């Protein structure tokens, strides 16, 4: 593994299994044991280097969010390996087999991976400041004063110095997402993962969140962003990764992907977004 490799995803496979609901009708018709299997990741390889900004594009159902969620073990995987900073995530390897590791060890590894959700997921019973301070106190075991001295500059960085005492119910979507970003950043992770950070926002609030993400990218933070914002991806990403039906179909610098895409799925995606002529 190269010195500057932060994320190393190797041949990852992931299947969602859903069982038919045990309703009376399904039982009468003998359908209660039917299970649906959907393979969402069919062997994905991805290497992210220190300081890189990667944007993952793809239509819905392409597996891009699932891949991101696997990287910090919010989803289990069936096969393959995911390393972050050299640590195998979520599993121990014994004689080539993956064995689930202790939850406390996974938790320890997750402190090194920042994650920003589409729906913000701020702690509803805490203020903006309380949200950023909570993991510093509960996970990093900092004192209240220390946690505060880390949290405040992070909230200032995302432009919310005047909203620190507000509860999430008194913040706009864009403000909530910026608090969520500050909360993840305050843990000083090696990498930040963004899962469609602007998809749940009103159009007029998208800009303020993208501006913050861009600012973080310019500070040299390693990040992976799953997004539908094509122009934004082109603007800030060092490398674009295009996914379709559980595999990476194409990757490369935005200058090439956006002007001379090789794969038909990439072309279809770009023309649907109006970047390439149809």
């Amino acid at each position: 593994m190269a010195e500057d490799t932060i994320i190393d995803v190797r041949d990852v496979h992931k299947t969602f299994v859903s069982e038919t609901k045990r309703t009376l009708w399904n039982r009468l018709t003998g359908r209660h044991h039917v299970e649906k299997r959907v393979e969402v990741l069919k062997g994905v390889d991805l290497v992210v280097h220190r300081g890189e900004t990667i944007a993952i594009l793809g239509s819905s159902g392409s597996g891009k969010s699932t891949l991101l969620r696997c990287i910090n073990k919010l989803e289990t995987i069936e096969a393959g390996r995911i390393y972050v900073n050299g640590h195998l995530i979520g599993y121990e390897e014994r004689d080539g087999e993956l064995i689930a590791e202790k939850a406390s060890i996974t938790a320890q590894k997750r402190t090194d991976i920042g994650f920003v959700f589409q729906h913000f997921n701020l702690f509803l019973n805490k203020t903006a400041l309380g949200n950023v301070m909570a993991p510093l106190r509960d996970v990093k075991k900092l004192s209240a004063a220390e946690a505060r001295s880390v949290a405040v500059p992070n909230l200032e960085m995302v432009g919310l110095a005047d909203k620190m005492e507000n509860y999430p119910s008194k913040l706009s979507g864009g403000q909530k997402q910026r608090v969520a970003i500050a909360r993840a950043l305050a843990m000083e992770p090696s990498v930040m993962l963004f899962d469609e950070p602007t998809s749940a926002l009103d159009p007029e609030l998208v800009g303020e969140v993208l501006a913050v993400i861009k600012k973080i990218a310019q500070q040299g933070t390693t990040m992976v962003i799953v997004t539908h914002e094509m122009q934004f991806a082109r603007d800030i990403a060092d490398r674009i990764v295009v996914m379709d039906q559980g595999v990476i179909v194409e990757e490369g610098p935005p200058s090439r992907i956006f002007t001379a895409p090789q794969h038909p799925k990439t072309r279809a995606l770009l023309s649907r977004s109006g970047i390439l002529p149809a």
Partner: protein
Amino acid sequence: MDFINNTFAVFPALLVAVPVVVQLALGAMLLALVLGLLIALARISSFSVLRGVATFYLEVIRGTPLLVQLVYIFFVLPSIGVEIEPVPAGILGLGLNYAAYLSEVFRSAILSVEHGQTEAALSLGYTPTKTLWKVVIPQSFVVSMGPIGNYFIAMIKDTALTSVIAVTEILKTANILNSQTFQTTAIYTAAAILYLIISLPLSRIVVVLERKARANG
């Protein structure tokens, strides 16, 4: 006017019983909160034995009258050598009973906390146990405030049942007064008013708590 004057006159004699009611209600509520939370956690745990025990407890408590439970603790337990004074027996009976009902409040409140809150905590490096105690349970308490308050008021009224196990709370005190003075109307009217004086302000507080919980939700 005699009736009103008589009602006022018996009030001081009944007020003596208020500290007993407070003692019963606070003691039993504390027991019910702690035990109720434990039962709720057992009911959602992944250990089937724990789930089974908790569900069995719930069914037994909910399927038998509180009055019978109190009588059982006070009159039946001594036959196997467990003698409990009236007030502790009352606290135990009320507490064990309300724990079952509060566990259902906690359980549904815990399950109502959005999965996104759990995922956020996990992604920040909280262990599953820490996520439960630091993120999920504090939020479920906010949701539970209103129902807990309502059960507390109900419990204060149910303290009257402990009169049958020799606790000199308001009703028992009224019974004693009645057997001495035979001012039946005045005594029981005063007792009813006393319960109202205690429960009305409390139900106002519950309304405020519920409104606050909704505002931050």
